[in-house]
């Protein structure tokens, strides 16, 4: 799978995963555009509160959604944050958070072009 890709997300892979359903692709992109900022806010809140459990849960949800939408780099950044949360290393999360923010901007911009 395209973990090393430079694309923000893989449209062809997404549509294939949806059984060729273009309408459904637009629907889930719309959902992700709504939910991703909410999950980012939850992660930022957990980082600010130094709450490893909250970080783990919020990053885990974003990881799942990003992976499903084929935004693999975003999913990877979320996975790094999830690990920081699980291992209670909130202070090590700064670099991963920077990566996540940058990648989320890129993914959201690319997805907005789709709908």
């Amino acid at each position, binding site marked *: 799978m395209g973990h090393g890709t430079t694309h923000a997300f893989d449209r062809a892979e997404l549509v294939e*995963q949806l059984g060729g*359903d273009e309408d459904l692709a637009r629907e889930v992109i719309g959902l992700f555009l709504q939910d991703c900022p909410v999950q980012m806010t939850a992660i930022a809140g957990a980082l600010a509160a130094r709450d490893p459990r909250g970080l783990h849960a919020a990053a885990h*949800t974003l990881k799942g959604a990003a992976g499903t939408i*084929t935004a693999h780099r975003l999913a990877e950044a979320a996975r790094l944050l999830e690990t920081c949360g699980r291992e209670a290393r909130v202070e090590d999360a700064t670099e991963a958070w920077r990566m996540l923010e940058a990648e989320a901007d890129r993914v959201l911009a690319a997805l907005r072009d789709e709908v």
Partner: protein
Amino acid sequence: VRALIADDDRVTATILASALRRWGFEVTLAHDGRTAWEHVVSHRPPMIILDWMMPEMSGLDLCHRIREDPRSAHAYVILLTSRDASADRVAGLDAGADDYVTKPFDREELRARIMVGKRVARIQSELIERVSELQQALANVRQLEGLIPICSYCSRIRSDQDSWEQMESYVSAHSSATFSHGICPTCLEKMSEVGEPER
């Protein structure tokens, strides 16, 4: 076949729901563990797809509950999660999941696994039906067990305190047996000894 999908991520839940509908399922969505459990108890869906990490109640806790409750113990449960460590798979299956699929999932692989589940669920429900038929039959047979008060002279059976009924009607009412009437050699002999009434 009815299916419950429990996932707090709306993106994944929407994709799953659409796929399962296309594969012929009647789908209900839940976005947290407690809502999922309430649906399991009230609707008893034969196919259940659970995310692991959910608010209110985790997919793992749900698995335990589903197996412990006789109303849902026979459901086919798939854990669908991005937790992909070997220890997680073991914990998931030990908790009572029938299958374990990791996210992001491959659509065709999930379809194939869900069809396995559909097959198992059908066999299971046929089995449950057959067992209840057998229990029903056994209950009918058992009605004839125990102490039956019978008249030593006319062979009538006491059906309650004051009424006595013919053995035939008693047995017919308490079993699925039916009677075909004939005459045994002993009775035949007695009948010929008595002979025709004299004119």
